[in-house]
């Protein structure tokens, strides 16, 4: 142990120390934090004890070894971010296992749990009384709403991004850009309410559909994922170096020719990532679908009847969590969550890889 005078000298010296006291403190803090986590996972009533030890260690460290403590704390914060994603994956997955076991399927004589959830084709597809939980109707509903939504949000969003970053005069940009952000800020339940009252009513009155349809939900979700596409695509277009555009303008191309032949091709992967993220948003949108749909867990006949009053992966969770008293029923909802989580995670990683590649290419160009 260091003496007091030594400690004071070190405090004055403020270099990142590696003396025994600091290491000991970090060990104590780390171990107690780990114990806290383990006890919390075990649902122990003693969780508060190691938590208090951690807090004490942090408090002492903050006073005596602030630099090291701060660094350790920021590290813990970073790790916890990754940890949360891991916990989400693990917990949602574990909870879905019972339903996967019930709905197992057989391929070449091998039984695969959960396979029946996506391969069962005979009616009924979803019947809680007899314990049949096929996710196909929800996957179908999500696919239909997502396709409609992206058909709207993709082209309009990219055009909006072009407008903001390339075409708009300053005054117009200062209106449109915050406007798009506010469009993203309107809560999904408000979109859902408007969709429920206006769009559902319109399709019901004029088109004679039932009160609510995948088509109507797709329209509303398209509007909701529009801001995501605009913002991310605009970032991509903005990141194209000015020198590339100037080169094109200098040889006499018009602004539109430059956009078409230089800016958009160079930003293409970024724009693709933007549309992908829009797809992710559309898949994950919950409240509008929950409020607007009539929740029929079936696949319409013929399959392209987009005016069917169906169900999506998200809406089945939000509408049935309350009456899912049976363990397997609730577990089937978790299975829907697993499908959502994996799909969106793949989309997120893919768009990230695309963006990185684009960044590297651009660094090569300049």
């Amino acid at each position, binding site marked *: 142990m260091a003496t007091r005078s030594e400690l004071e000298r070190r405090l004055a010296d403020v270099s990142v120390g590696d003396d025994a006291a600091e290491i000991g403190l970090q060990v104590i803090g780390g171990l107690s934090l780990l114990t806290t986590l383990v006890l919390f996972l075990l649902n122990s009533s003693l969780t508060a004890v190691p938590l*208090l030890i951690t807090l004490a260690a942090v408090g002492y460290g903050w006073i005596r070894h602030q630099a090291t403590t701060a660094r350790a704390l920021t590290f813990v*914060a970073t790790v916890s971010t990754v940890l949360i994603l891991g916990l989400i994956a693990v917990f949602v997955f574990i909870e879905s296992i019972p339903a996967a076991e019930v709905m197992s399927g057989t391929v070449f004589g091998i039984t695969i749990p959960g396979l029946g959830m996506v391969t069962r084709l005979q009616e009924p597809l979803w019947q809680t009384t007899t314990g049949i939980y096929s996710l196909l109707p929800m996957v179908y509903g999500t696919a239909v709403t997502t396709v409609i939504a992206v058909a709207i949000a993709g082209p309009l969003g990219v055009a909006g991004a072009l407008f903001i970053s390339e075409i708009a005069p300053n005054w117009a940009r200062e209106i449109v850009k915050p406007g798009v952000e506010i469009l993203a800020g309107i809560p999904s339940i408000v979109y859902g309410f408007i969709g429920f009252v206006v769009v559902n009513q319109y399709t019901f009155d004029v088109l004679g559909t039932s009160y609510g349809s995948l088509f109507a939900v797709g329209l509303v979700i398209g509007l909701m994922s529009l801001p995501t596409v605009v913002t991310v695509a605009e970032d991509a277009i903005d990141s194209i170096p000015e020198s590339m555009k100037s080169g094109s303008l200098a040889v006499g191309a018009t602004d539109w020719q430059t956009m078409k032949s230089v800016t958009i091709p160079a930003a293409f992967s970024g724009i693709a990532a933007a549309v992908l993220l829009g797809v992710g948003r559309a898949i994950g949108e919950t409240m509008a679908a929950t409020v607007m749909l009539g929740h029929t867990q079936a696949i319409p006949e013929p399959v392209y009847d987009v005016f069917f009053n169906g169900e999506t992966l998200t809406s089945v969770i939000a509408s049935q969590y309350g009456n899912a008293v049976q363990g397997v029923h609730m577990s089937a909802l978790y299975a829907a969550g697993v499908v959502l989580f994996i799909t969106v995670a793949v989309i997120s990683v893919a768009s990230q890889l695309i963006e990185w590649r684009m960044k590297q290419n651009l660094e090569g160009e300049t």
Partner: protein
Amino acid sequence: MTHDDSETTAGRTGHTADRMRTDGGSDGADRMRTDGGSDGVDQPRADGGGGFGVDRTGTRSALVQADATLYERIAAGLVGVSIVTFALGVTTLFQVTSVESTEVLGIGLYQLYGLALTVVGVGIVGLGVASNREWADTEPDAYVGVVPLAIVTVLWLATGSIVGSTVLGAGAVGGLLIGLTTGAVSFLIALRAGEDLGSTLPIGALVVVVGVTLLTGLIGPEWVWNPQEFVASFPSEAVVPVFAQGAGLLAAWSGAKAHAGFGTRGRQQGSFLLISMNAAAMIAVLAALIGFVIVRGAGPMLEGFQIGASGIEFPFVTNPSQGLGIQRGVYPAIVGTVWLVVGAVSFSVPLAVGAAVFLTEYAEQGTFTRGVEVATNGLWSTPSVVYGLFGLAFLVPRFNDTRSLLAGQLVLGFMLLPLCLITSREAIKSVPDEYRDASAALGVNKWQTIRSVVLPAAMPGIITGIILGVGRIAGETAPILLVASGPTFPSSAPNVLASFQFQASPPFVTNPELLEAGSALPYQLYAIITAGVGETQAFGWGTALVLLIVVLSFYTIGIVSRIYFRRKLNREQ
């Protein structure tokens, strides 16, 4: 951050768009305002300046000054009529105008569309012919682009099939044959007739077909399309506005090309017109959404509101949602939202800022930081309902096995974490390295530099990120629904502050109110929607308005502060 770049390009793009705007044929009074001399050479169009954009400004000035050619005036007029037709189509779709209520000069609405579209279609064909015969001074290319070619072919294929199978009674196969013929003919015309005829004749003719169909009453008010495959049917009041919008857009596009004399500049004007209309439509949608909620919600929200001698009375905001003989309000929901936001912020902001500091200041840029970045983006895009499921599986069993405010706070905190982390990281990254070097040169260590130099400099960006993130989570419904939702119409609000209790045994601090399920504004709205229609719907619109005001105030503050700090940063540099 890219805003530095965008500032430098602002002059150029602003310039472009100013030119663009006058192209719409509206007002051109301040046309030359931003022309910084780079390409504002004011030469008349007739000098045959080639296919480049640089000499066009002069032509545009000709449009707004007295010597605009007749050709350009006609083209501008046609574009104007097309845009008005499109806008009218939107109003009809939203039932603001309808065939029963709208009549202009004794002409019914559909005939009006028909007349406008016929005139515009004929006019556009005329423009193309005039350009082709060199009656007007244009610079068309030899060929139309791939995109117009594809659009024209597909549209004529569809039109021919539909007209053939319905009006001419040729049946499905015969209709398809007719469609293939018309598609092929229009393809050949568009391909071979030169750019001016190719981009006007097929489109103008198509617009005329739509116009005549409406004008002759072939599609009248009683008309219904009833496809067997769908559960829906399509009456004229849904189909006609869509046709009018589509034809109006096509005509505006084609007319704008003609107005700029075809060629590269024509294509630029056509595309810019469509893109600008798209942007205007977004703002219109935003205004319509907010306006709609205000119109529906202001009444219920302000009911009983008065400022008197006894102070301000605002029952909608201060009353519980249920109670004997009282006017319903959303007080419990507001309190619930406040506590959810406070909890989420105090949980996730330290984590987010800490992680951002570690990632930008301490960590080696490499696999680890990339991995964290992937994880952060994964968290950002994880659907909110999955967060809800996670809270239900992870938190609820650990908090007395009931839904609770605390679980809601933590789940919303998890959702806030990636939002704050991404923006904080950007903010810290954008602090110039000179700041760090200057501080290090004074002999202080890294942490002191971070604490006294980096974090204060990055603070505006961090706070803006937090505000925008809070705006986002304050409106989240799905996670609250799954982990924190209590009675649908609560009669009292949680009193969190007064119910902290301390004890000697673990867990030492308890707060029963935090462990109770509560309400929140978005959840309250959800409860109202699912409860049914009728009188409660007015209550719902009031709640929606309050929610919108809460959320959008966060957004407005966030956006305004960001603009302010960015300007300040730009001035300092």
